[in-house]
C-alpha cells in the first residue's frame, strides 16, 4: 500500500502532469484525406498511359476519357487492333477490370486496388503531415489515424499560436511540376485568356492546357492573374527533388533553391537542353508560380522564384521536401485555444476544486468526527493516486478532467460513508468496537462494489465515445473510482486497524 502511494508520488514529480490543449492552449484538428483524389489521380495516370501506348503502337483514332473516379473508357478501338490493346492492358493495366461493348472498352478499377490506393493515400498523407509539422518545430505533437482503416487523421499541436499558418502548411498539397510553356513562346504569361485561344485558332491541341498564375508586386502581394498555355506532359515533379531550401535571389528577394535526384537531374537536363529559349513553367497545385526562360541546360539544381514573401519561401521549402500530399485534405473539426483562456480555465478549475474539497472535508469531519480524519486521509491518498496515474500513464489533464477529479472528491466519500454507516449501525446494535469495524467493512463491501461498478460502466462508455477533453474526463473519473474502491476497502481499513491495535481495549470510537 505504502509502496503504491510512493510510486504514485514519485511518478507525479518525475513525470509532471501533461496538460491538455484546452488548458495549455494549442490546436486540435480532425481532418479527412480525400482519398477519391488519389483514385482519380491513378485513373488519370493509367488512362494517360493507355493513350501514350496507343500512340506509340500506332493505333489511331482512339478517344480515351475518364467516366468516374475509378473508371475510364476507350472508344473507337479498331476491331483488328484488339490484340495490341490486349497486350497493353496485360502489361500496364493489371489493377483494372475491363469489358468490351462494341468498339467501346470500359475499364473499372478493381476493388482491391482501389482499397490499396486509399490505404496508401492515407498513410502517405499521415507521413507527409508529420514531416511538415516536425519541420515546423512544434514540440509534443500528436498525429494519428482515427481508427484502423479510416480516412480521418487527428492532429494535436500544443502551444501553437499561429493556427492559420499551420492549417495552410498542412493542407498545402504541394504538388510541384515543371512543364514546358508552349505559348507565349518565351515564358511569361498573358493577362487575357482569349489571346491564347486565338493563337491556337480557337481550339487547344490535345496535349496543351491553359493554367492560371498570380501576378505579384515587389512586396509579394497578389495583384492579378496571368495565363499560360503549357504542355500536359511533365518534365519532372516534386518527387524528383532531393532537397529544397529557402535562399536569396539575385535581387535579394526570397527564393527556393532546389537540388534534384540523379534521375530527376537526367530528365531535367534532357528537357532543358533541348528547349533552350523556351519558357519553363513551375506549377504548384495547378497554378503557375513562375515561368522563366530556359537560358541553358540545367542538370542538378535550380531556383524557384516568384516574388514570394520570406515566410512563403520557408513554408514552400518545407512542403517541398516533406513531399506532396497524395490527395486533398478537408478540415472536419478544428479547435484552437489561446493561452489566456487556458490559464483562466486552470485557475477556475483549481478554485472550484479547492472549494469543493474544503466543503466535502468539513462535511465529513462534522458527520464523523474522529473517524472523519480517516476518510479525509483516504481522500487525499486517492487524489495522489489519480495524479500519479495520470502522470505515469502520460494522459493529459483537461478541464473536464479537473471536473472529473472534483466530482471524484464528492463521489469517493461514498465508499467511506457506506462503511461508516454500517459501523455506526453495528455499534448501535451493541457490538464491541472491533467487531463493529470488522463487520462494518465486510457488510458494506458488496454495496461499495455495486455502487462503483455502475459509475465505472458509465465512465467506460464515455471513454469510448469521447475525444480530447471529454476523454480526459472519463480517464480521471475511471482512475478516481478505482482509487476510491482501493482506498475505502484497504487504506481506510488499515488505518482503523492501526489505531485500534494500539490500545488493548477499545471502548469508544469517534464516529
Amino acid at each position, binding site marked *: 500500500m505504502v509502496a503504491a502511494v510512493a510510486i504514485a508520488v514519485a511518478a507525479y514529480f518525475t513525470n509532471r502532469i501533461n496538460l491538455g490543449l484546452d488548458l495549455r492552449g494549442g490546436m486540435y484538428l*480532425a481532418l*479527412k484525406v480525400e482519398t477519391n483524389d488519389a483514385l482519380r489521380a491513378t485513373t488519370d495516370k493509367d488512362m494517360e498511359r493507355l493513350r501514350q501506348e496507343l500512340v506509340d503502337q500506332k493505333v489511331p483514332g482512339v478517344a480515351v476519357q475518364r467516366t468516374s473516379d475509378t473508371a475510364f473508357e476507350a472508344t473507337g478501338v479498331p476491331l483488328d487492333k484488339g490484340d495490341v490493346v490486349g497486350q497493353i492492358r496485360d502489361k500496364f493495366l493489371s489493377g483494372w477490370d475491363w469489358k468490351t461493348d462494341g468498339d467501346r472498352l470500359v475499364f473499372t478499377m478493381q476493388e482491391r486496388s482501389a482499397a490499396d490506393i486509399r490505404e496508401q493515400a492515407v498513410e502517405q498523407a499521415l507521413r507527409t503531415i508529420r514531416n511538415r509539422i516536425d519541420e515546423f518545430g512544434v514540440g509534443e505533437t500528436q498525429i494519428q489515424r482515427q481508427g484502423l482503416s479510416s480516412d480521418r487523421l487527428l492532429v494535436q499541436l500544443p502551444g501553437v*499560436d*499561429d493556427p492559420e*499558418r499551420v492549417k495552410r502548411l498542412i493542407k498545402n498539397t504541394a504538388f510541384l511540376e515543371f512543364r514546358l510553356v508552349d505559348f507565349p513562346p518565351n515564358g511569361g504569361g498573358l493577362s487575357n485568356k482569349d489571346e491564347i485561344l486565338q493563337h491556337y485558332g480557337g481550339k487547344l491541341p490535345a496535349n496543351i492546357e491553359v493554367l492560371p498564375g498570380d501576378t505579384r508586386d515587389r512586396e509579394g502581394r497578389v495583384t492579378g492573374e496571368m495565363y499560360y498555355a503549357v504542355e500536359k506532359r511533365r518534365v519532372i515533379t516534386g518527387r524528383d527533388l532531393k532537397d529544397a531550401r529557402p535562399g536569396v535571389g539575385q535581387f535579394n528577394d526570397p527564393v527556393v533553391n532546389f537540388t534534384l535526384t540523379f534521375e530527376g537531374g537526367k530528365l531535367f537536363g534532357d528537357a532543358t537542353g533541348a528547349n533552350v529559349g523556351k519558357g519553363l513553367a513551375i506549377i504548384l497545385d495547378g497554378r503557375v508560380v513562375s515561368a522563366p526562360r530556359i537560358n541553358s541546360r540545367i542538370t542538378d539544381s535550380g531556383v524557384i522564384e516568384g516574388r514570394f514573401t520570406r*515566410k512563403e519561401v520557408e513554408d514552400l521549402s518545407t512542403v517541398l521536401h516533406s513531399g506532396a500530399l497524395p490527395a486533398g485534405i478537408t*478540415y*472536419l*473539426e*478544428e*479547435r*484552437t485555444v489561446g*493561452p*489566456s*483562456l487556458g*490559464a*483562466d480555465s486552470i485557475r*477556475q*478549475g483549481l478554485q*472550484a476544486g479547492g*472549494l*469543493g*474539497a474544503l*466543503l*466535502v472535508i468539513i*462535511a*465529513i469531519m*462534522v*458527520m464523523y468526527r474522529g473517524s472523519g480524519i480517516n476518510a479525509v486521509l483516504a481522500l487525499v491518498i486517492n487524489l495522489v493516486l489519480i495524479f500519479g496515474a495520470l502522470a505515469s500513464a502520460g494522459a493529459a489533464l483537461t*478541464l*473536464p478532467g479537473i*471536473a472529473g477529479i*472534483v*466530482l471524484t*472528491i*464528492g*463521489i469517493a*466519500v*461514498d465508499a467511506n460513508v*457506506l462503511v461508516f*454507516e454500517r459501523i455506526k*449501525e453495528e455499534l*448501535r446494535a451493541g457490538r464491541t468496537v472491533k467487531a463493529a469495524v470488522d463487520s462494518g467493512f*465486510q457488510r458494506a463491501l*458488496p*454495496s461499495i462494489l*455495486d*455502487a*462503483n461498478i*455502475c*459509475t465505472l*460502466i*458509465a*465512465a467506460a*462508455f*464515455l471513454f469510448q*465515445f*469521447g475525444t480530447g*477533453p*471529454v476523454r480526459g474526463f472519463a480517464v480521471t473519473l475511471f482512475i478516481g473510482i478505482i482509487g476510491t474502491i482501493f482506498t475505502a476497502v484497504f487504506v481506510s481499513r488499515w488505518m482503523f486497524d492501526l489505531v485500534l491495535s494500539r490500545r488493548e481495549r477499545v471502548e469508544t470510537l469517534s464516529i
Partner: protein
Amino acid sequence: MNLYNTHIDFMKYRKFWVWVSLALVVVGLVSIVAPFRVNLGIDFAGGTQLVLKFPAAPEVDRLRHLVESTGVRDAQIQRYGKEGENSVIVKTSTLAGSEEGSGTKVVAALNAAFNAGATGADLNQLGSESIASLLARLDPDHVAAQGDVAAQQHYAPAAVQVMQARKQYGLLTSWDQIHGLSPTVLEALKKNARLGSFAVLSVENVGPQAGAELRRKGLLAVGWALLGMLIYIGIRFQLPYGVGATMATIHDVLVTVGLYTLAGFEWNLTTIAAFLTLIGYSTNDTVVTFDRVRENLRKTKGEPLIEVLNRSINQTLSRTLLTGGTVFLAAGSLLLLGGEVLRGFAFIITVGVIIGTYSSVYVASPFALLWVNYFSKRKAAQKPAGAPKTVKPKTATPKPVEPVKPQPVSGKGGKSRAAGNRR
C-alpha cells in the same frame, strides 16, 4: 443531525410523488420534442465559434451586423465570462455548403471594422514566430549580419515575452503590459507594430459532417451506457428491482434534460459527459438502497414488502443524504467557480444529484412495489393481494417475474454473500 433510527413512512405518499415524477418527466420529454427549445452547440449542430476579447464592452448588435455582413448566417453573440472581461462568444454556421469554418472571414471583417486604417503588425493577433520574424526584419539590435536563423533566434525570447503578456491579459491594451523587453526592441515594436483593438481567444469549428457524427456517437454512448446499467442491474437484482432502478435512472435523465433545456444551456460534448456520469451516479444511488432491501428481505421473511422498503430506505437514509450532499457540494463548487466551459456540466450534476437522491426513494421503490403488487394481483385467485409474492416461493409464478429460486429477492450475486454474512 440525527438521521438515525428515523421511521419516516416514505411509501405512504408514494402515489402523490409518482404523479409529481410523471409530470416532471413529461416536461422533460416535451422539452426535447419541441426542437426550438433545444440549444444545440456547434459540437452537434456544426458551426464556427469564436471567443473574442475587446478593451471595453462591445455592442452586441453592431457585432452581429458586422458578422452577418460577411454573408455568414445565423450569427449568435453572447457575453462570455464575467462582465469586466469584455469578452463575447460568436457562434455562426460554417461556410455555406462546406466543412470549412467561417472564423477567418469573421476575423477579417472585424479587422476591417475595428482596426480600420491601422498600419503595422497587430501584436494581439500575430503568433510568436511571426513576432520574431518581424523583429528580425526590423533588427533593432543589429544582428542581421549573423544570418537569418541567428537573428530569428536572437529575437525569439522577446516574442515569448509578448506572448506571455497576452497569456496573462488576453488582450494587450497598453505597452506597459509587456515586460522584459530591451528598450531598443520595445521602441522598434512601438514604432512598427500596434496593439489592435480586439483579440481572438479561441476558434472552434465543427463541420456539418463531424457534427452529425458526434451527434450519432453521443446518442449511442448514452444508449449503450443505459443498456450497460440495465445488464448489470439485471445480473445483480431480480426483475421488479431492476425495473425500479432503471425507471429511476431514466426518470433522472429525462427530468434533468428538461430542466437543462428549459434553463437554456447549450448541448455539447461535455453535456454528454455529464449525463453519462449522472446515469452512473443515479443507478449507484438506487442500487445501494436495493442492496439493503435484499438483505432485509432475507432476514425477515413474511414481512410485507412495503414495510421492508420503508425500513430499508430509512436505514440507508443517512448514507443517501450524506453522499448526495458531498457530491452536491463538489458539483456546486464547480457550478459556482468552474467558469463558463463547465457551467452546463456542473448544472447537470448538481441538479441531477438532487433528482437522483429523490428518485432512489420515490421512483425506484414505488415502481418495484407496483410491479410486485401488479403481478401478485393477477394471481389473486390463489393469493391475498398486496403481499409480496416473494414470501411465497412455492407457488407457480409467471416466468419473468420470479425465477423459481429458494432465495426470495436476491439475484445470483446474493447467494454467495448470504453465506458470507452468516459468519
